[in-house]
């Protein structure tokens, strides 16, 4: 797989371990209460698994397997931009919640995530095409 896909997928697997660990703690805490603060892991559990894992894995695999032009993937700069934007956004949203940062910091995190998704869509849009060009 191309270098960017490998980075996306590796990052996704790291989020998967974090999100699954938090999920395991949350579920165990439902069975046998561990600590009152355990519930504070819930937003990070959701953010890490939905955006960090699922979305990032989809981007990594899409960058790898969507149709190309001969061997070229078109303008890859927006796709490369997605990687730092998405990860900065995820961490900003999670840390803003955990550390009670001002509300605008969570908004900023969401803006970064939205920009990441828009950048990837910009890259991927022309690649959604027939395998054989007319």
């Amino acid at each position, binding site marked *: 797989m191309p270098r960017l896909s490998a980075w996306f997928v590796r990052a996704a697997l790291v989020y998967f371990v974090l999100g699954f660990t938090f999920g395991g703690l949350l579920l165990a805490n439902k*069975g046998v209460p561990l600590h009152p603060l355990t519930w504070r892991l819930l937003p990070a559990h959701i953010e890490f698994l939905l955006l960090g894992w699922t979305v990032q894995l989809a981007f990594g695999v899409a960058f790898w397997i969507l149709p190309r032009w001969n061997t070229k993937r078109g303008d890859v700069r927006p796709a490369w931009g997605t990687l730092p934007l998405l990860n900065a956004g995820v961490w900003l949203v999670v840390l803003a919640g955990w550390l009670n940062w001002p509300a605008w910091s969570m908004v900023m995190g969401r803006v970064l995530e939205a920009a990441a998704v828009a950048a990837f869509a910009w890259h991927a849009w022309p690649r959604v095409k027939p395998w054989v060009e007319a």
Partner: protein
Amino acid sequence: MPPLTRLFIKTSLLYLVAAFGVGLLLTLRPLLSLPAFVNGLTPVYFHLFMVGWVMQIIVGVAYWMFPKWSKLLPRGHDALALATYWLLNIGLLLRIIAEPAQVVNAWSGWGWLIVLAAALQWLAGLAFVANTWPRVKEK
């Protein structure tokens, strides 16, 4: 596709159908008098979708399509992949039973079964990552 992938994908489809069934049950609550355990099904509904269907189909397809680990072990250690399957599904099924049961039954054992469900699914996640990480390779 490899037999283990077929197992993951077919099982994931069963969870997808089950998730829709549980979702239907949840929407019927205002209309019908349903057993009390139904009130404990909301988190089960989400996890039937996200763990039973989404994660399991990803695990199955990744096992099939990711770059080969080596000529000797093209898809990594099959024992780890099989462990992922059983740990994930036993853990998830245990959760499906124990979490709503805890809502309606005071037996303390339900709590420990939920802990066991959490541990099994967590171990499944680790087994999946251990077998997948070395296959994420640049060409």
